[in-house]
């Protein structure tokens, strides 16, 4: 059996693969999505329209997509990794060009009825491309500093494009996902020491460039940071979101006001309550218990994901799986920190719970890759170390 997997191009049959699938993880994902449906139902004042129904349909489509992706041999995904990355990068440049022509902050491309956000696509594309890079890398060269320039560029270029959109949250998400892959790939710890130092320098540069001609961030991003650091600065304007969110969240107390009973959510005090601030609604209606349950579920998903990754026999699969987990973690950690006033309002959705098509699709595509790596955890790749 093992030998077949090792050598055979004739892999396991589809039913075998399905059986092998990490079903507990799949169930957990459905569970989290279910919480999302319940919250979408609640923010619409106890109605499946306009959010919950659409969200369920999107989830169903994405879920099937995830299973399909999981069934495809992981070697196929390695093969298409750079192409995927390249297309995503082109689309990112595309919105940049279209954005400079059109509105100030263009983040999507309309392809027929689908509204595609290339930055979302890039989150997974970057993971896959970096995983391939390190997988293909001659192991002897991983200690060379020079070999790290290419992955750094692979991270920096899309991150810079996304910052320009401007979408600080996604940029942070991209960068952290990329760095984590480098970390797990075994890059020297000195590199990370250096990275932390230079990041510190960059933050410093961002702050001193404020108000200069060469300001690194848009004024509203500075505002968001300033208001994040001191929300009372502008209680009616930029600080309004954070303040209202903290009030609504805090008023939930231990047990919450009850499902469909969150007063501030119902009374329109919360901005973006169906998307970025859905966790506030959950906090108001289910209290700390509800918040901890969701956080716990997320952490269990993360743990299952990482444990799955560790069991994969090839570096590409491990890195893809871990990268997806990291992206997932970054999503919910940043979103929760944001609505609880621990991070600036950066526009990162709560994974599987916030209303929104692209992020759901992309995230489940990522989980599909993770599952594909898991299902095909023992396959061998033709050659390793051929590049560089």
């Amino acid at each position: 059996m093992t030998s077949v997997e090792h050598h055979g191009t004739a892999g396991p049959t589809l039913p075998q693969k399905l059986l092998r699938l990490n079903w507990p993880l799949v169930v957990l994902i459905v569970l989290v999505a279910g919480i999302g449906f319940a919250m979408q139902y609640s923010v619409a004042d106890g109605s499946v329209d306009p959010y919950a129904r659409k969200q369920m349909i999107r989830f169903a489509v994405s879920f099937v997509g995830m299973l399909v992706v999981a069934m495809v041999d992981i070697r196929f995904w390695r093969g298409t990794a750079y192409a995927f990355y390249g297309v995503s990068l082109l689309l990112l440049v595309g919105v940049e060009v279209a954005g400079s022509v059109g509105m100030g902050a263009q983040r999507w491309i309309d392809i027929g009825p689908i509204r595609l956000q290339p930055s979302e696509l890039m989150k997974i594309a970057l993971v896959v491309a970096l995983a391939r890079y390190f997988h293909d890398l001659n192991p002897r060269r991983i200690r060379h500093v020079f070999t790290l320039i290419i992955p750094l560029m692979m991270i920096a270029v899309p991150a810079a494009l996304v910052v320009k959109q401007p979408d600080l949250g996604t940029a942070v998400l991209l960068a952290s996902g990329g760095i984590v892959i480098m970390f797990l790939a075994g890059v020297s710890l000195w590199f990370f020491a250096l990275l932390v130092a230079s990041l510190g320098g960059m933050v410093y540069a961002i702050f001193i460039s404020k108000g200069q001609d060469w300001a690194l961030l848009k004024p509203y991003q500075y505002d968001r940071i300033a208001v994040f650091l001191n929300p009372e600065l502008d209680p009616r304007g930029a600080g309004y979101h954070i303040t209202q969110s903290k009030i609504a969240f805090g008023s939930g107390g231990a047990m919450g006001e009850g499902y469909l009973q969150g007063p501030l959510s119902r009374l329109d005090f919360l901005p973006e309550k169906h998307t970025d601030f859905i966790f506030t609604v959950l906090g108001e209606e289910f209290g700390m218990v509800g918040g901890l349950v969701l956080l716990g579920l997320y952490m269990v998903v993360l743990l299952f994901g990482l444990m799955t990754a560790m069991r994969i026999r090839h570096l590409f699969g491990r890195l893809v799986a871990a990268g997806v987990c990291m992206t997932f973690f970054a999503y919910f950690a940043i979103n929760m920190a944001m609505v609880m006033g621990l991070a600036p309002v950066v526009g990162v959705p709560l994974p599987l719970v916030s209303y929104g098509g692209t992020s759901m699709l992309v995230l489940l595509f990522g989980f599909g890759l993770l599952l594909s790596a898991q299902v095909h955890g023992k396959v061998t790749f033709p050659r390793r170390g051929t590049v560089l």
Partner: protein
Amino acid sequence: MAMRRYRNEHDRSVFSRRSLVLFGAQGALATALGARMYQLQIIEGEKYAARADRARIRPSLLAPVRGQIISRDGKPLAVNRHNYKVVLYREETEDIEGTLDQLSALIPLPPLRRKALAEEIRRTRAFLPVVIAENLKWDEFAEVNANAPALAGISPELGLTRHYPEADFTGHLVGYVASASERDVERAGKDGSLLKLPGMRIGKSGVERVEEIALRGKAGLSRVEKDAHGRPMQELERREGTPGEDLTLTVDMDLQKYAMQRMGEESGAVVVMDIYDGDVLAMASTPGFDPNGFVLGLSQKDWLSLRDNEKKPLNNKAVSGLYPPGSTFKMVVAMAALEAGLIGPGHSVYCGGHIELGSHRFHCWKRGGHGTVNLHEGIKQSCDVYFYDIAKRLGIDRLAETARKFGVGVLPEIGLVDAKAGTMPDTAWKRAYKNEAWYPGETLHAGIGQGYVTGSPLQLAVMTARIANGGFEVHPRLVRARNGDRVKTRSLRGTGIDKAHVEAVKRAMYGVVNESGGTARRSRIAMPGYEMAGKTGTAQVRRITTAERAAGVFKNEDLPWERRDHALFVAFAPADDPRYAISVIVEHGGGGSKVAAPIARDVLLKLQFPKEIPEGAIPQGAAPVFTVEKEDEEDGSEDA
């Protein structure tokens, strides 16, 4: 192959180690998130819950219905009248201009008002009403009402406004209400937010002001949940307030109206009070003003014409006008001298027309003098020399002590904020206020109610009432009942004046009106049992120079209005068993006997014969009693 496997195993162990480190770091961050939840929801949860309630629940006060004021005889004096208004809700109409065009066909909407409205509508939030027109006539309102379904966004609504049916006749007494000023709000303390409610009015003068707290009632409370935009969603709690007290005044509207009309064009005041319970039966101050104008808002022009009128229609002269009492003060001087044991009722003084004090000569009003006069004749004929003489010997301090017992120089406890205390001077007063010694000559002036002595018509009525009731300290009052429950009268305290002394003075006052030689004999009431007893007074407002006195004192008719004497008269009736006291002051009216006494006679007749004054109530040849042509009963206006 082995090498590759080794590398792979090495990679895997690095990956696993680092994965665990990563998961540890993520776990730490997740713990931080959990801790933040604990901080926001458990530690600070109560604070945020309170802030959430404050953000969404707006308590709003419900204005209580203001108490009504009626007269002793049940006539409404201050009522709440339906205010028919039309409001617009912007969010309910797509074409505001079109709606207003349609509306202007039904009610008058001048272009200027339209322009102001457009601005107001623009500024007001879409779901809040804008008052398009108020105080509409019933038929206009009915028309809008009938067409309301076709008028998108238009809603006919009913409010309340204060209305004073007796208008000018009770303007000073009842007062009026208006929107609270910032100072009112400040002074009201925790009731301030109630005063700020739109449409809320508070008493600004008269009884409306004095009884403000009672009339206002207690505010109700409504707790309304509103959304982030301020749109009301649902009422969570409603506690109705307590309506204000309905007040019944002591004033008899028939008499009040009669007194006001009797004064006619004159500027002055009439106060009638019950000498035992202090009920003020009439408190007229002329000219009057219509308080309704102040409720709706007075135009600048009307306000200025009221303010600048030389007859000061806005002043309640009955309580705030201060006049030298003149000869009406002589009873008090007489009683002071009797009390001091200085004179007996039989004490006589020779009047040769003047008295000397040092180098000054003090004149009697009667050139040539009265000859020898006793107390009775002195009051009856109002001999100045008699009172110069006893005042001089009495001294100002002993005079002031007695005068205060009769309310002269003492603030009447009537509550009206504009009531004044007047002045009863003595040596201490002069030192305190003028920083000067008292001159003996000033005592002589005080002895005939001139000089520094001043009092309001109300104080003169109180003084007269205390004489009439035999020297008891009666206090005037305006409120007879609250919510229909009678207000207990104060028990009468004696002033300590010897009853015999009061009686002597009362007999002399009888003489003033009813005996030959009395200064007010022409104004007597001839009906036995209804006679009045009184005292005339003429208060000089100018100085008569020696030259003028030598050439003959000018007659009042020859002087400009503002330099003529004030005419005064105080009286009580019935003379033998008194019950009512009256004071009349006609500013610059001339002599008290000629101008003020006939007014007192007519008012007392009206009081004693409310239906019809019988034939023979007045002697043959006397001036006829003033009567008002019967007017039609006012229309049954829709009072709430």
